[in-house]
């Protein structure tokens, strides 16, 4: 098996195509584990994984927790509401406290971009980024890649359109990074308030003001959740206008390539990003994404902490 280049997974940068392929291949095997009557293997027995979540995210946290448990690791959840973090403990002090508990991996979700990098600098164990600010959500991009490969048989040479709030989306960033690295033609689309001027340059993708050119003959459409708070920031006048101008309709779906699929990281706003009934369209792979999430996270935990890893000195 191809080793990962770092003992952490902080972002897509640093992963080469062969690493991505290795992770996806490994996830194939773990997908099978989740479908067995007894969904547990002893691979990570005796290992400890701490889920450190500074933002609420039931689905991602549950996915990581299941992944760890199905590998027989001890998974512990630390969420902000039940810890001293709320009392103002700094991330540095939290890192030192975690260090003393000797975990093998810490999975962190944090509202600040770069928080996982910070944690990785101060911890000996593996750090897995479960979403940091607007920066990255690498396991989401990997599970999306897994879903795409499983549906379309390949993860290169595809036209992919990512629609919605690109500016604030760590999912968009990690997907752009991964999909361009794997040799796909990536397009982003949304109102200019939600696509930073330098986004094309930063990620080597094409930006559009209209859905039509982005969706024309696309193999994959990825819809992003529109957050209500964008309305108060003068980024959008109303959800109704967004749905009218950037919501995906059946007519638009007909422009896609014949076997195209529709992805959404969830939770979906039916009637905003997509016409209400289209969310259940046969092209939708939303539930496959959820299933892939557990398998990909199992693969990553296995690859990062499954083999004997030398520890590094924290700073």
């Amino acid at each position, binding site marked *: 098996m191809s080793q990962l280049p770092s003992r952490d997974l902080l972002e897509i940068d640093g992963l080469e195509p062969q690493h991505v392929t290795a992770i996806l291949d490994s996830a194939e095997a773990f997908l099978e584990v989740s479908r067995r009557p007894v969904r547990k293997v002893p691979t990570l027995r005796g290992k400890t994984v701490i889920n450190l979540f500074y933002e609420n995210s039931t689905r991602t946290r549950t996915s990581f927790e299941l992944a760890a448990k199905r590998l027989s690791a001890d998974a512990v959840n630390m969420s902000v509401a039940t810890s001293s973090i709320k009392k103002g403990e700094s991330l540095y002090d939290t890192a030192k406290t975690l260090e003393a508990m000797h975990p093998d991996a810490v999975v962190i979700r944090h509202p*600040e*971009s*770069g928080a996982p*990098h*910070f944690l990785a600098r101060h911890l000996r164990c593996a750090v897995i980024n479960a979403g940091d600010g*607007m*920066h990255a959500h690498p396991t989401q991009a990997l599970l999306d890649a897994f879903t795409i490969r499983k549906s379309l048989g390949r993860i290169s040479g595809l036209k992919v359109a990512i629609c919605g709030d690109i500016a604030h989306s760590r999912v968009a960033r990690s997907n752009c990074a991964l999909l361009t690295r794997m040799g796909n033609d990536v397009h982003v689309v949304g109102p200019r308030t939600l696509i930073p001027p*330098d986004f094309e340059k*930063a990620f080597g993708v094409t930006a559009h003001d209209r859905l039509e050119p982005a969706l024309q003959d696309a193999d994959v459409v990825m819809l992003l959740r529109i957050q209500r708070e964008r309305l108060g920031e003068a980024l959008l006048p109303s959800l109704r206008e967004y749905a009218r101008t950037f919501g995906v309709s059946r007519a638009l779906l007909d422009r896609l390539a014949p076997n195209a699929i529709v992805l959404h990281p969830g939770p979906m706003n039916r009637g905003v990003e997509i016409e209400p009934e289209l969310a259940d369209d046969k092209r939708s792979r939303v539930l496959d994404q959820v299933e892939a999430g557990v398998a990909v996270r199992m693969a990553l935990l296995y690859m990062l902490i499954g083999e004997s890893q030398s520890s590094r000195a924290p700073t």
Partner: protein
Amino acid sequence: MIRIHGAYQLGTSLEIDEAGAILIEGDDLELRADGAWLVPGLIDLRAHLREPGDEPAEDLESGLQAAAAGGFASVCAMPGTRPPNDDGALTEILCHRAAKVRGARFLPFGCMTQGMRGEELTQMEELKAAGCVGVTDDHRPVADPALLRRAMEYAETFDILVMQHAELPELSAGTVMHEGPNSVRLGLRGSPRAAEVAAVARDIQIAELTGGRLHLAHLSCGASVELVKNAKERGARVTCDVSPHHLAYTDADVGAYDSNFRIVPPLRSPEDRDALRRGVNDGTIDAIASDHAPHPDIAKRRPFASAAPGMISFETTLPVLLALIEDGSLRREAVVRALSVGPARVLGLPGERFAGDFTLIDPRCAWTVSRESLRSKSANTPMLGREVRGAAILTIVEGQVVFQR
């Protein structure tokens, strides 16, 4: 009498004795300094000494000693302390305390508005009488153009210098670095150049409207320098400075969220950095100011966006600038001017200097930046652990040696 052998003079014209030594009135000292440069005492237009309120980061004693060790004979102290220096009584106390320190000369700035709240003017005449060399709201822009107009008119009544951090706060709210491909990649909120450049344009117009002296602090954009250049050609009484960080680094140096590079204004593109270098070389930029901003470890040892902005620079300004002279980015004469005559002119000093102040610089002196070698109480600099070349070996204030390496 101070006798210095083997050094040569840059921007000074002191007598030389029969043995070839440069003679300076003052303490009794004789030393050899082959290849060193004797320059007018360096003047730092902008630094944060943190007293009162944040003494764990720095205080008058450590700050003025660190400044002297960095070659600065005089330091303009920003008023953004806790509480802010917005009245004459506090200025007097600070001057009194600073006078006891064997270090750089203390030149306080007072606040432009009370409590730096941007609402009411301070008693500027009282601040000046107490020892302030100018007024500014430090890192906070006086964003209300009508208030800036009145502040400049009132300051001009008493011939008081106004220093402004030019920024449109609405356009930069919540931002932590330069807006560009790097901020997009890192997922950090970026401040567009327009947040500074539009404020520079507006503030120059207000300076011209009032006829007052306006100093624009720590410019970060090439377009800002262009505006200052045009204003000067029209005869506007506008001056500006740049920090050594903005001459040396770019937004790419933020790298993987290195909080040492979280500074305000943010580090910008290589094109901006190059335009700032040209501005120093052609004299459009009047001064290089350290913008020394000490923070304790706990304030910097945080994820990027929540780390306190600023880096220390009293002791690293010379090695940073000397490296830029060495690689041809900056002209030596321009740097010496921007650290001495330039800021003296901004402050309106008679004779364009403090006559008894000198700095002796050894451009080859190698040393390592470390917690042990730094006099500052804080160590928030990306240079930490690096071996550098160039240092002040003697700093003289009114003939008195306040630092000797």
